[in-house]
């Protein structure tokens, strides 16, 4: 976990996640290095979130997940976090009954000694102050997280990741529900973070992706079908086919919009029954 000269990395090899008989992730290989800003995209049910779940031991993983030489498969969630892997969730999950400061303080505390735990917090650490400034939450220090706006909660989550000193950041739809300005600010922040963190972003928002992704991995049906820059991925015929041919898993409008975002002809999306009930993997 020391910040030495070698860049941090997260290397997933032959990852399989099987629920009962359903294979959610089927032989995924993925390597992300520090300095990259990797987006993980794919149609609903592709296994993107499940892959992240597997890295953080929320889903049963087979295969190998290596972070800077530490094998993560088979370890418990809190141990994996202690190796420096942090994540956010699709729905912001901050501690709503606690204040912004308390949320950040808890996130920053995983290496505290028991004696410190039994004491009252006195003052605010420089790191937390800095992160509150970066995430625009300085004015809300004493506000209960439950009353923050949706976007602010997402920011608080990112802030919690930052103070927790993770060097692998796995973000699941970080800009969902954010305004355009908030998206841009988040994008800039992620770009900054990517310089010294391994950052993987699961995202549906194609505009956001085109603006900020340095590289893209496309998943479908539990497998990786393409990887490369945004342009390379857009030009990939398999990706085009997947995005044009899976309208059945979402509404026609959504599929068309997504296809358009990818730079494909939305009118090519014709098949599929709109189904409002199906949402992302869970």
């Amino acid at each position: 976990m020391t910040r030495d000269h070698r860049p941090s990395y997260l290397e997933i090899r032959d990852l399989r996640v099987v629920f009962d008989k359903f294979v959610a992730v089927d032989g995924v290989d993925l390597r992300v290095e520090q300095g990259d800003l990797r987006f993980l995209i794919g149609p609903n049910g592709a296994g993107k979130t499940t892959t992240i779940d597997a890295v953080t031991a929320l889903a049963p993983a087979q295969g190998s997940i290596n972070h800077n030489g530490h094998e993560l498969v088979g370890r418990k969630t809190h141990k994996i976090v202690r190796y420096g892997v942090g994540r956010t969730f699709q729905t912001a999950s901050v501690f709503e009954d606690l204040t912004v400061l308390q949320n950040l303080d808890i996130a920053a505390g995983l290496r505290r000694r028991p004696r410190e735990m039994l004491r009252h917090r006195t003052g605010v650490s420089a790191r937390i102050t800095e992160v509150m400034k970066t995430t625009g939450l300085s004015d809300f220090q004493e506000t209960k997280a439950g009353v923050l706006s949706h976007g602010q909660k997402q920011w608080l989550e990112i802030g919690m990741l930052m103070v927790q000193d993770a060097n692998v950041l796995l973000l699941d739809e970080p800009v969902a529900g954010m305004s355009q300005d908030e998206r841009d600010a988040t994008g800039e922040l992620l770009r900054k973070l990517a310089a010294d963190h391994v950052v993987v972003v699961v995202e549906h928002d194609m505009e956001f992706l085109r603006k900020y992704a340095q590289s893209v991995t496309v998943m479908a049906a539990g497998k990786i079908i393409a990887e490369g820059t945004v342009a390379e991925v857009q030009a990939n015929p398999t990706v085009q086919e997947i995005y044009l041919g899976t309208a059945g898993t979402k509404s026609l409008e959504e599929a068309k919009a997504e296809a358009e975002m990818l730079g494909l002809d939305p009118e090519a999306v014709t098949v599929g029954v709109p189904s409002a009930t199906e949402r992302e993997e869970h």
Partner: protein
Amino acid sequence: MTTTATPPATTTPSTTGARKLPSVAEGPGVWTTGPRGALIGLGIGAVLLLVVAPLTLGGFGLDLLGRYLCMAMVAVGIGLVWGRGGMLAMGQGVYFGLGAYIMAMHMTLADTTLEGESIPTFMRQNGVERLPELWGIVQHPVIAVAAIILVPTAVAGLLGWAIFSRRVKGAYFAILSQALAAAFAVLIIGQPVLTNGSNGLSNFQSLFGWDLDDSGNRLVLFLVVAVILLAMLAVTWQLYRSRFGELLVAVRDQEERVRFLGYDPALIKTVAYMIAALFAAIGGALFVPVVGIISPADIGVVPSIAFLIGVAIGGRATWLGPVLGSIAVSFAGTQLASAFPSAWVYLQGLLFVLVIGFLPGGLASVIGLLRRRRPEGRGGGRGDGSAGAPDEPGDDPQDTTREATEPEAAR
């Protein structure tokens, strides 16, 4: 802090989830009771218990109050695990009983020795000729006290770790803990040679060489009980405002999320459970000399649930709610049980259901609700969230005072 803590005027506060656990966090002094409020609260308690009560209550009344205080110690622990930790501990009778029986064994042995016998009368009647090993261990007072502290805590540590690391929670934990209380009572009843079965242990003459019939000694005993209870309150106050306390609330509200911050929730919950067990055990140990008897009827399922009722009524997540609720319920129980012997149990059950159903924050939350109704003009509302806020000096102590005096007045 006061200057920056302006409400988010520019943003639309989201309403989802904010009311998830209504009012538990709203009661007075949940986060806010600063050192001043705490000192005032404890000071009032000390004056009432150490000065007013001995001066106004006779020996009988003092014994009764002492009994309530012992039960309240269990309640303080339940407030910690249930109110703050979200673990509905329905079997605290186990730890209460462990502490009580260790104390009772020691006291019985001491009396036996005073009478010049080698084994207690009930054992002799059961045909026992040699003192069982288990009893021999607690003969020495120091070892007895150490056992009262260590045994229940260790048992809670082992059980807690086994339960929480397997992620047993919610109703399953509640049922499991209750089953433990039932099993423990059955175990005690099933060992008449060791425990005198369902008769329990009673007729104690002395405690650590002090004559329990002497009214002066009884007064000292009461004062010791009161001081220990106040000390427990001071400990919980510190725990609640410590980082551990914040973390415990975080575990209560989002256990999984805490895991993703690198903590092991099982460890945090186990520590809280052990502290609650220790409080219950001390309460049990003091209950024996104060009340003069311990039997399986005091530690089984029904008493274990009775411990909860006061906590629920008083406000489980508040600092003083559990102890005040517990004392009030004990008091009401004594009054009503003599007037309508069978009705009290039903009333108790009804109260429990009503509070859990309609007032999950307990009576303490009523104050919080009233407070919120009032127009926000004095920095209230949001300022509630600040830990140890020194900014509203007249506010918290005032409420603490009111809260502290109300049930006392009922006496």
